[in-house]
């Protein structure tokens, strides 16, 4: 055999053997003892590393979950109850199921309802726009429509509708991880319980101006008139700072408030269509 080939083969083989030994020794020396359950918990998590739970990625959540004194307080919004049950089973625990949640956009100020009063002409970032100006409409509270929520969403579940210029949540894809809600400088997006069959009623406005001012700025604004609170048989609606809020816990989805609201600021979602005369068209179209 050609000695060059022989020598090369021998040297490389020797080198490989030596390095393998070094690797083995080093790996042993620096081995980190880890609770094997962390791996197991991680494997039942969705693996999206979205951070929606508040931990740095799924590994971080699994680590914290295994070490936690009170793991039942933790929740993976993406994996939902299924993932949490599996994770709890690994730990030998049982965790009460949580109701599914969804991101809800609390602004209905489409250009038709909320005329533009200025032209925003800087980089497309809600965060930047909000530090510079109250907005390009008369409403200093509402959605700026520049899409920080869209960029924050890891699940492609939110998009800006071309006609309303408002974010629209895809309920199938939304995992309620809360990234959009955190990204929104105006706190327009609320993470809210989905409701039975996805049926829920909410106030789609966060304008805290006095009624007249709010109405002048936006035709779909909550003017804080309190009619909804009066009509609600369950006391689920509170009006604070000229703004109504419907508590999900108390709301029985009777929808009396929806037809009572003079500006149509209260929206109902996923209910079967009412008799045509009563249905507020706006409510259905913005939550498609």
């Amino acid at each position, binding site marked *: 055999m050609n000695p060059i080939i022989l020598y090369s083969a021998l040297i490389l083989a020797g080198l490989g053997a030596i390095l393998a030994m070094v690797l083995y020794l080093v790996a042993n020396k620096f081995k980190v003892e880890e609770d094997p359950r962390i791996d197991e918990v991680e494997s039942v998590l969705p693996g999206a590393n979205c951070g929606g739970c508040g931990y740095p990625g799924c590994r971080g959540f699994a680590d914290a979950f295994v070490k936690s004194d009170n793991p039942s307080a933790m929740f993976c919004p993406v994996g939902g109850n299924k993932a949490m049950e599996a994770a709890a089973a690994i730990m030998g625990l049982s965790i009460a199921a949580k109701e599914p949640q969804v991101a809800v956009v609390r602004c209905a100020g489409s250009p038709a309802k909320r005329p533009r*009063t*200025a*032209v925003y*002409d*800087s*980089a497309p*970032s809600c*965060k*930047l726009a909000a*530090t*510079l*100006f*109250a*907005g390009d409409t008369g409403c*200093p509270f509402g959605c700026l429509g520049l899409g920080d929520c869209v960029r924050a969403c890891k699940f492609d579940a939110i998009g800006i509708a071309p006609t309303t210029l408002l974010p629209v949540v895809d309920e199938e894809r939304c995992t309620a991880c809360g990234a959009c809600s955190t990204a929104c400088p105006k706190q327009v997006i609320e993470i809210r319980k989905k409701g039975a069959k996805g049926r829920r009623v909410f106030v789609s406005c966060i304008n805290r101006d006095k009624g007249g001012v709010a109405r002048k700025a936006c035709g779909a604004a909550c003017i804080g008139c309190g009619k909804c609170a009066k009509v609600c048989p369950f006391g689920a609606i509170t009006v604070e700072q000229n703004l109504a809020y419907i508590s999900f816990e108390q709301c029985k989805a009777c929808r009396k408030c929806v037809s009572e609201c003079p500006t149509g600021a209260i929206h109902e979602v996923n209910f079967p269509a009412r008799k045509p005369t009563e249905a507020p068209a706006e409510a259905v179209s913005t939550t498609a």
Partner: protein
Amino acid sequence: MSLRTFKKGGVHPPEQKLSADRPIEQLALPPKVIIPLSQHIGAPATIMVAKGDHVRVGQLIAQSGGFVSANIHASASGTVESVEPVADGTGYRRPAITIAVAGDEWMEGIDRSPTLAHDPGLAPNDILARIAEAGIVGLGGATFPTHVKLTIPTGKQANILIINAVECEPYLTSDPRVMLERGPEIMEGIALLMRAIGVSRAVVGIENNKPDAIAHLEQLAHERSGVEVQPLRVKYPQGGEKMLIKAIMGREVPSGGLPIDVGAVVVNVGTALAVYEAVLKRKPMVERVVTVTGKSLQRPSNFMVRIGTPVSALIEAAGGLPNDTGKIISGGPMMGKALLSTDVAVTKGTSGIVVLPQPEALKQKPQTCIRCARCVSACPLGLEPYLFARLSQHGRFADMEVERVMDCMECGSCFYTCPARVSLLDYIKLGKNEVGALIRARNAKK
């Protein structure tokens, strides 16, 4: 006459000093003045009047709300109409006092005569106290409370007073007008400032596109010891404190430091006049000179305006809002703030109102960065704007801090010079906000 300037970076936008030859006119009192409580950097002032109170010009209506804060005085006499928040130029509602104007009744003890008063030999502390009392803030636009700036921190020593008469922003002309019309008063003010901080040397920095102001002040400076006028080559942003110190002293204020770290105190020339009036005439800051200008404006002018006068009244006095108006800026076009409406009050920091016509009002469409490096050469602080824009777009704010984004003074030279019209300053500002939050969070943890 040797011209000085700062060495690195800078741009030279067209000067457009349309109102340079217009003498300062007194603007009539409006029917209503709106006086915001936050006209300065620092804590807002606290309200001292209630709805229905009668106030006179110069009356203290809101008291300094902290160490870095300033007093606010009524700029018109009349009745307090409301103490409710009012929307400012950003559209956000901020605390303010609205006064329905009736007559023009001034507080006693304010000397409004034009006779030149002379320093009776006040002690430095008295000078500072009178400045603080009068609510004087930096009139160049940054509105830092002047008495705070003049209070030299223990362990530091001031060697030189620099009077900022650069006015490097295009369009604005209030500083040169003040220099031409109120020269002797400014000199008195400079003398008071020198005494207050204990220095024997003052340098007035003026760009050499204002030769009449240079000549006038040089003549006046001859009569005084320790005051000199330094003509400067025209270059933006020479009016920035750091740049001006570099131009005049050849020294660099350390990153994250203050002018006092190199022994300098920088005061705007208009502020020097306000100091004179506050200390020797006991006149609080109730009015200021505002340039109202724009290419389509009929009568670009310089007005002496009461604080709280609506911007619409100024524009009306300058010939009315032109039909082709596309943007209204409070301040100069390089660093000023765009206004959402003209129903906004003039504040202590309003150095000018610039009305831009429609075609120039909108920024040109951004293209992709071609890495031409113009922004790097234009940055007077030796930063890399293109890199900031990239990092900011990718949310890499920690890296931006390492690259010293907090040194940026937002002069906008990078965006001005960018051939691809990339929104460099927008992304830098976004990054600065985020990095600021990071730093605050870190400090809170400590």
